[in-house]
């Protein structure tokens, strides 16, 4: 089984790499198998971590507690909530029937509204405010000076209400310079990790699979 696994891994690795030359039947097969496995992977993951862990198990747990007479009202209420959530989930299945598919907008609207509500506060609270406070720096230090001007000019670059001309245009232009330096640095920095991963895959082919090189 281990040998079979190794050869399958090797075969599919090469098939995916072959895409670099051009699209070909091997890549087509690998791509479809990969997508299928990953959809199946989601099924296992969601079944265990969502349907069982978040719905079935809590319901049965609350049921046990309720029948044991430990605050039955509370546990029955919890079961009610969970069943309601499950029912909202089931409403998504109306999408299978074109005539009734508009009903799925209810759970969808719930999720979207929820997301919007979370982000409205969490973006301002968790990201905006701390980042502003982080920019209150002592300017008598070259590093802080860079941060100060970098943040201000980047912000000005994103100002939409005025055409970028005159002083505003000049500052926005400095902003785009800052942005380009940062992006270049990030690009160059990421190259290392990407190459390492390629080295890892080549080592897998040459050392683990084909045993062409002995390590050490």
């Amino acid at each position: 089984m281990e040998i079979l696994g190794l050869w399958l891994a090797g075969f599919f690795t090469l098939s995916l790499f072959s895409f670099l030359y051009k699209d070909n039947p091997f890549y087509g097969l690998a791509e479809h198998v990969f997508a299928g496995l990953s959809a199946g992977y989601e099924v296992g993951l969601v079944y265990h971590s969502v349907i069982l862990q978040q719905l079935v198990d809590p319901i049965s747990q609350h049921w046990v507690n309720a029948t044991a007479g430990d605050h039955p009202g509370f546990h029955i209420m919890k079961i009610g909530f969970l069943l309601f959530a499950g029912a909202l989930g089931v409403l998504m299945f109306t999408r299978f029937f074109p005539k009734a598919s508009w009903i799925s907008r209810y759970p969808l609207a719930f999720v979207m509204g929820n997301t919007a509500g979370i982000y409205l506060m969490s973006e301002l609270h968790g990201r905006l405010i701390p980042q502003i406070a982080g920019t209150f720096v002592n300017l008598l230090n070259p590093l802080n000076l860079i941060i100060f001007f970098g943040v201000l000019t980047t912000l000005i670059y994103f100002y939409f209400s005025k055409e970028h001309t005159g002083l505003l245009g000049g500052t926005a232009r400095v902003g785009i310079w800052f942005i380009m330096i940062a992006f270049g640095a990030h690009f160059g920095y990421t190259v290392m990790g990407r190459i390492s991963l390629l080295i890892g895959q080549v080592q897998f082919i040459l050392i683990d699979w084909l045993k062409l090189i002995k390590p050490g």
Partner: protein
Amino acid sequence: MRLARPVGLLLLLILLLIPELLAANGASSVETGWFRTYRINAVIVAAVFSAAVLYYTQRARRGDKLFVRKIAGLDEVEDAVGRATEMGRPVLFIPGIDEIDKIDTLAGLSILGRVALITARYETPLYVPVRYPMVLAAAQEVVQQSYITEGRADSYNQDMVCYVAGEQFAYTATVNGYMMRERPAANIMMGAFYAESLLLAETGNAAGSIQIAGTAQPEQLPFFIAACDYTLMGEELFAASAYLSHEPLMLGGLKGQDFMKVLIIAAILVGTFMVTTHLGGDWMRSLFEVR
């Protein structure tokens, strides 16, 4: 007018909260009341921001002209779809690869709504591969509505939007295969992207497609900039839907953002001055403490 009630309710709620919060502030370190008073700073920021957005939306409703500068890239969306029509090739739209509970995805979906209007008008084939089932449901709804709005309900086909694979790189492998086989004339990628950004963008470039990308993930922007024709950076992604809609009402949010930006710049100038001169810098920082 339809907005007035929910908006009023929201404002009322926030306004009612403020005195309550102020009164309780500083009472003790352990919260015993109904509110997390230590979050007063976030509530105030949210209230000011909401008020600014509503003010500008109201002005737009009254018919005031709100100026918004050109956003490079967005003007190209229509041209790109037009080019696809001439070439008889499809348009590929990727609403990011994150779940629907990521705000970037919602921004991507609303841009999809505008793009689908254009493809419906020109009868250009549209293909939207998605990575999460919930995004699938929402994207199908969005595209279908756009086709109905343009009076082309019969050209809409449910499989224009399809679920591809749950795993990040399995998704990428499939979409890359599609790009090389079908050679879409335009790839529009709007939403949350991660390590796969460059895999998608380079393949699209090799396939000869016009590429317009937008993401708020700062780490992925350098790769989109290197491989795409136009890139929307950060905030521009969220501005895109409003900008593309040509609806003055939608611009209210954008103006509200700019209003906040002016306040933020002012706060940074004041805060930095106070820290540098040691005149109440710590106090200023404490105002922005979050828990």
